[in-house]
């Protein structure tokens, strides 16, 4: 994957690679980087940019009306005022947490194969893995967990506990506190507030448990009396026995029994890890994934496989990606990257980036086009994993024109909206 390549290059402190990585992240986040002359509303094909345009223009218009009345309403002055820093700040979009199942269009499709490409130098995939497993166990879903470790069952002790509804009060309290900070970020807060209220009141029912406290281990009663299979991949010389285990597990969860609560989860951690004896048998692994995919497709199950793509040859890694119904990748971000820190809002809180490459399209031919494909992974209060859209940091007026992109978008489009 290009992102992986760029990541590896940047670790060697190559300034060019770092610049291109910044570009790639910005472009992946659908933030428009085109200069104002090229990024007109008509020519900008970036959907995220268009969305922002609407919001930016409306805010700018609201703010500009009194200003314009007092000034000579010539177009030049309008342009100047639009480029003032306080209006550029309004281009920041709400920083509300996004849930992975919402990104994927309502959750993981039953019968789909989800693959997560790991960052070989960071354990970020484990965050997704733990949340995925905990969510299943909390909702009494059978689980099959396979890992290259000798004692896979020990991993169950590290699963996070769900955050109960009473903890929501503390979250609301935080929001109240943050409301006090109505300085430069006020628009973002207003948007965040509205959006959260909207989400919370939807249906008036408690939603599927998505929030997990990484500091608290999963309560014992979730683990006892449940159907949990743990398999160590380390000892097995070939994948035939593992395939039989998966097939036995899936046999309990037939697809068409009409009982949707019996959905199961298969989780395979670091499938091609070098400690597994089959790790040099690339075609056997592919064959296993293919047969797992066909088995999962005809059952009420979601399979999640994480794998380090750099451990298999590039062409085999591409084959894996093609086999996946939903393809995600995670990457760590370096602690001190000043350029990224300047570019992205909330960089200090980020632990990594999540890329959505492909979303499952079972029984349909229409591709899912996401507004943004890169999301930042943050640990809220060091305990729960949240995903957020990447946001460009506000630009101070004195900085160069290279990052003044959102301002330029509004500038180029404003002639259409501000018709005096």
């Amino acid at each position, binding site marked *: 994957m290009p992102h992986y390549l760029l990541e590896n290059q940047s670790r060697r402190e190559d300034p060019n690679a770092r610049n291109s990585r910044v570009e790639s992240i910005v472009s992946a986040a659908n933030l428009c980087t085109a200069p104002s002359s090229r990024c007109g509303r008509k020519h900008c094909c970036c959907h995220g940019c268009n969305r922002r345009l609407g919001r930016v223009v409306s805010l700018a218009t609201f703010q500009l009306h009194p200003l314009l009345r007092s000034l000579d309403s010539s177009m030049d002055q309008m342009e100047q005022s639009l480029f003032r820093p306080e209006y550029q700040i309004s281009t920041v979009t709400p920083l509300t947490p996004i849930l992975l199942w919402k990104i994927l269009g309502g959750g993981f499709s039953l019968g789909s194969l989800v693959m997560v490409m790991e960052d070989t130098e960071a354990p970020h995939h484990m965050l997704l893995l733990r949340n995925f497993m905990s969510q299943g166990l909390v909702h009494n879903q059978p689980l099959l967990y396979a890992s290259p470790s000798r004692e896979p069952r020990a991993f169950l002790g590290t699963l996070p506990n769900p955050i109960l509804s009473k903890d929501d009060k503390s979250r609301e309290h935080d929001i109240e506190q943050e409301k006090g900070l109505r300085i430069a970020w006020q628009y973002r807060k207003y948007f965040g507030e509205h959006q959260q209220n909207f989400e919370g009141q939807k249906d008036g029912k408690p939603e599927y448990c998505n929030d997990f406290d990484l500091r608290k281990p999963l309560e014992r009663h979730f683990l006892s009396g449940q159907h949990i299979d743990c398999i160590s991949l380390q000892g097995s010389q070939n994948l035939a026995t593992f395939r039989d285990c998966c097939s036995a597990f899936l046999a309990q969860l037939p697809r068409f029994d009409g009982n949707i609560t019996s959905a199961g989860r298969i989780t395979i951690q670091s499938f091609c890890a070098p400690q597994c004896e089959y790790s040099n048998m690339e*075609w056997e692994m592919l064959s296993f994934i293919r047969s797992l995919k*066909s088995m999962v497709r005809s059952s009420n199950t979601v399979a999640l496989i994480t794998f380090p793509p750099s451990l298999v040859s590039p*062409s085999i890694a591409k084959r894996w990606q093609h086999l996946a119904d939903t393809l995600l990748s995670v990457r760590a971000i370096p602690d001190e990257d000043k350029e990224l820190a300047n570019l992205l809002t909330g960089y200090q809180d980020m632990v990594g980036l999540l890329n959505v490459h492909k979303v499952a399209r079972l029984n349909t031919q229409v591709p899912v086009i996401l507004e943004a494909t890169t999301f930042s992974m943050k640990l809220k209060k060091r305990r729960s994993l949240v995903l957020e859209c990447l946001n460009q940091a506000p630009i101070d007026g004195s900085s160069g024109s290279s990052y003044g992109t959102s301002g330029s978008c509004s500038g180029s489009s404003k002639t259409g909206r501000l018709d005096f």
Partner: protein
Amino acid sequence: MDRSLNLLDEALGLDNGDSNPSETRLLLLIEDCVETSAYFVLHHLIKRSLSPHSSALVVFVAFAQPFSHYDRILRKMGCNLVVQRDNKRFLFLDMLTLECPGEPQMEMVKKLAKVDFLICMEKSRKLWRLEPGASLVMIDDISLMEVAANGSSNHVLDFLHYCQTLTTEFGCSLVFLNHKDIYSSMERPTLILQMEYLAEVIIRAEPLATGLAADVHGQLTVMNKGICDGPRTLQTKMCNFHFRIKENCVEYFYPGSRT
């Protein structure tokens, strides 16, 4: 028919509905990548071949998806695959769920090919009194066939050559789907090179260089090697257009032709 649908058909040289079937006999290779899949071209060709105006027979070798997947998609497009399957006009060989421990799956593909392909095609042809050249063999997809053959691309090539003899012997068309990006990092990608050499028409689906948008899902490049443009002149025709996939159809349009 929707005019926008015809852009792909025109590029394939299939626009003339009443042409001699032997002229439309071709080996068609569809190439795609992780970012942009080209399954919709397969669906389009199935629908076209099974339309009431056509009398073609379709043999579909599926390694990628189960029958229900194709059935639901084609149903939205106005084509009932179950009925066509019952009428023996659509032969579906499900290689996805076919598991045979101890025997390489490629052997089964060969067996299937020899037994099912020919017998079914002959039977169906007699049943439907089809003209030679009115059948279509589709394989979805070749990269998974390689997996079934345990990575032996020679086996796959043998099979493809065998399929090619069908085109001359029985006068049917072949449609193969493969993923181009798998082979981009290989030093000698024999399989894809040979397929591209054999193919008369290559359809390549790629994402837009500017990134995906909600109203443009990607671009198609159609390279038609054997266009007869007047007497005894052959030329390669290249077409490039954008597409937008919908549930019941795909819109094709030239870049910049939409506001």
